[in-house]
């Protein structure tokens, strides 16, 4: 289910440009992928591989320490569930990954392609530079001509191969009658080659083969850095997706079989165990339970569900097993329809023009006009087309955006690396620039500012004996409220009472017998209490008046710090939630958030963000649920925690990997610094141009000056970017 969603709503253009390869037909040997977050040394690799290879049916197991993964080739009857216990016995945490969702990182064709071109450009430029140095240091006449011819023989095929990405980009821009950064690059490379060939044929003094090659090399280096940063983020994001293996249990004539969610059809019976997520929309045929709908609607209170109740894909079954009959599958589910809202909101995001594009818009026409003017000027002045063309080529080469091509990728690589170490994943290329402009922060409540796990708040109100009975009953259930009660009671050192015959009644609670009396812990209506707005579980001992255990949602670590840091830096913080008035108000007061909105529908959230946008504000949206996805996509920039639903992660620019929220405020600072560095880099590149361009226009530039200006500006720009680390 989730894998399908992500491919349907790929939010970043990079993902659309390099689509995941269709899953290869699975041969007799099944590939299993396991995520091993705990491995870190050579002994771990050896142990994992030995344990896996010793398991019968496993043909080959290979650990990748960089990605912390194991790829296993095994006989078809082996499943990941068989191998995970083997590793857990050896002391390694292991999770199954969906190999289908990983395919894009496995065969990293685009990255390999760029690396290859970079290598060829590097090899050729070193050799040509060697020959050029001999020319600059005084080779003359026949020797110089021979050196130039050899340079040409190396440069022409090398550029034909390695500059292809620029050629194709420039062509696609020109075809729609637009200019991008690649147009002047291609023009400079081609003009340099043509004039140099011409000069060489006439035994002229200056040839720019080395300049054309180093230009290609530096620009490819920038492209490769850019690509690597995004590929790393993409593979980590993919791993999050792959961790949710989309399987469901189908009931056929009473027998259970595990099938991929994609194969489910309308009308089939599906069994959803407690803790499982609904794979499809459907109607409950049998069973009673409670449903956690917080990811869809933001409400924290579980909803009671029994036969005939309609369920939507994405809801989590809490207490009892449910059998549902599918009414809508795949793209027709309400989960998917909500995710479609994202696609509509998406168009707003693409309007943002990055700093690099802004620079290109100013730069490309300027360079072309300057070069054309110097050609015309020199042609009128000297009447010699060869001189004029040479000077025009020199102007183009010297102004060529070597440093500009590195200015942005070098900084984003350094900044993304820094944020990654703090647990943030930058998915979108311009996310940092947009993050730097944020002045309003909108938080979702459930699952974002709160951890989504309940916390017992009125522990002290209860008598010791009540607590002992409640603990005994709570321990028999896996319900989140019971788990919170057990945790609180155990921490206080309470021992469970001797309650006999404990049974869990799915959807209602647990009951048992204590000293001849019936005891119950569960829903108010079942136990006999009065339901109020707060989340609570009730305990009744015999015919005594029932008592309430009240809960609130626990704050996520770092939430307080993040909100305070944002307020301290003068940003407005707003809380928008789908939860009830009382719950939202309480949290807003606790965190000191002045403006808050409760009971917001998904459309309301997106609409409010749009209104803020129209007021000219740059909104950062932090959210995790499906009800947030449209808002995440509509915001200027968006962040979602790793625990968020797949669709929400896809819609956001940045994913928070850890549990702690406090890095968000740091990320804003880093983004501001990164943007400052990018601007500095543009200034440095401009300064070099201001010095070198007059020389070129005056006809004083030599290939040596061009090479010096190009390399020093590129190196300065890269070093400036490294200061950010």
């Amino acid at each position, binding site marked *: 289910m989730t894998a399908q969603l992500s491919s349907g709503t790929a939010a970043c253009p990079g993902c659309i440009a390099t689509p995941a390869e269709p899953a290869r037909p699975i041969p007799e040997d099944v590939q299993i992928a396991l995520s091993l977050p705990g491995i870190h*040394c*050579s*002994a771990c*690799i*050896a142990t994992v591989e030995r344990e896996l290879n010793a398991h019968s049916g496993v043909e080959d197991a290979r*650990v*990748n*320490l*960089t*990605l912390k993964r194991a790829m296993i080739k095994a006989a078809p009857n082996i499943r990941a569930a068989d191998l995970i216990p083997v590793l857990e016995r050896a002391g390694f945490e292991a999770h199954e990954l969906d190999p289908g969702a990983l395919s894009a990182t496995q065969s990293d064709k685009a990255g*390999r392609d760029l*690396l*290859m071109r970079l*290598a*060829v450009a590097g*090899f050729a430029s*070193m*050799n040509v530079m*060697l*020959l050029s140095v001999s020319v600059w240091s005084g080779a003359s006449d026949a*020797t110089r001509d021979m050196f130039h011819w*050899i340079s040409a023989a*190396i440069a022409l095929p090398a550029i034909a191969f390695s500059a292809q990405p620029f050629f194709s980009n420039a062509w696609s821009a020109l075809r729609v009658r637009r200019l991008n950064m690649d147009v002047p690059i291609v023009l400079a490379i081609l003009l340099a080659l043509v004039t140099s060939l011409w000069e060489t044929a006439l035994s002229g003094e200056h040839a720019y083969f080395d300049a054309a090659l180093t230009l290609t090399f530096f620009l490819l280096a920038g492209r490769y850095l850019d690509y690597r940063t995004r590929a790393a983020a993409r593979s980590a994001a993919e791993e999050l997706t792959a961790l949710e293996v989309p399987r469901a249990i189908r009931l056929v004539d009473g027998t259970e079989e595990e099938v991929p969610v994609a194969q489910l059809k309308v009308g089939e019976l599906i069994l959803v165990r407690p803790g499982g997520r609904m794979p499809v929309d459907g109607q409950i045929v049998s069973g009673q339970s409670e449903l956690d709908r917080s990811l869809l609607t933001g409400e924290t209170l579980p909803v009671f569900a029994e036969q005939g109740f309609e369920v939507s894909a994405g809801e989590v079954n809490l207490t009892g097993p449910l059998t549902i009959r599918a009414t809508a599958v795949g793209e027709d589910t309400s989960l998917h329809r909500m995710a479609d809202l994202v696609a509509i909101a998406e168009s707003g995001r693409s309007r943002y023009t990055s700093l690099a594009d802004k620079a290109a818009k100013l730069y490309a026409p300027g360079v072309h006009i300057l070069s054309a003017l110097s050609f015309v000027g020199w042609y009128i002045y000297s009447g010699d087309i060869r001189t004029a063309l040479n000077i025009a080529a020199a102007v183009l080469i010297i102004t060529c955006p070597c440093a500009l091509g590195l200015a942005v990728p070098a900084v984003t690589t350094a900044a993304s690396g820094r944020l990654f170490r703090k647990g943030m994943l930058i998915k979108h290329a311009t996310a940092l620039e947009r993050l730097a402009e944020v002045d309003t922060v909108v938080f979702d409540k459930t699952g974002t500012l709160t951890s989504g796990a309940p916390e017992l708040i009125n522990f002290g109100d209860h008598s010791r004996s009540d607590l002992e009975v409640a603990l005994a009953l709570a321990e028999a259930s896996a319900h989140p409220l019971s788990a919170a009660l057990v945790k609180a009671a155990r921490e206080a050192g309470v021992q469970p009472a001797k309650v006999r015959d404990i049974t869990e009644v799915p959807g209602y609670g647990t009951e048992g017998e204590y000293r001849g009396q019936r005891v119950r812990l569960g829903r108010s209506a079942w136990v006999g209490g009065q339901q109020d707005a707060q989340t609570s579980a009730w305990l009744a001992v015999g015919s005594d008046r029932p008592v309430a255990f009240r809960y609130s949602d626990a704050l996520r670590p770092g939430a307080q710090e993040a909100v305070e840091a944002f307020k301290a830096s003068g940003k407005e913080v707003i809380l928008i939630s789908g939860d009830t008035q009382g719950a939202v108000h309480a949290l807003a007061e606790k965190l000191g958030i002045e403006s808050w909105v409760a009971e917001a529908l998904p459309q309301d959230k997106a609409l409010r963000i749009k209104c803020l946008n129209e007021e000219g504000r740059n909104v950062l949206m932090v959210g995790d649920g499906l009800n947030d996805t449209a808002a995440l996509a509509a915001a200027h920039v968006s962040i979602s925690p790793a625990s968020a639903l797949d669709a929400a992660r896809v819609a956001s620019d940045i994913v928070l990997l850890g549990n702690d929220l406090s890095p968000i405020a740091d990320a804003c600072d880093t983004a501001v610094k990164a943007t400052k560095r990018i601007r500095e880099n543009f200034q440095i590149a401009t300064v070099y141009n201001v010095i070198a361009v007059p020389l070129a226009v005056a006809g004083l530039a030599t290939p040596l000056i061009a090479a010096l200006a190009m390399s020093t500006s590129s190196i300065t720009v890269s070093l400036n970017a490294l200061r950010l680390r």
Partner: protein
Amino acid sequence: MEVLAYLIPISLLLGGIGLVAFIYTVRSNQYEDPEGDSRRILSDEWDDRPKP
């Protein structure tokens, strides 16, 4: 200056060998797991004979 007739082809050849070697390493997935490879060298498994 005749020495150039040897030196230039030799320098191109050496550079070319480097390039070919690099392309071979990229093609055979040798940059997939840099961290793991740097640690695998410390393991004494397969020290006596190569992995089949």
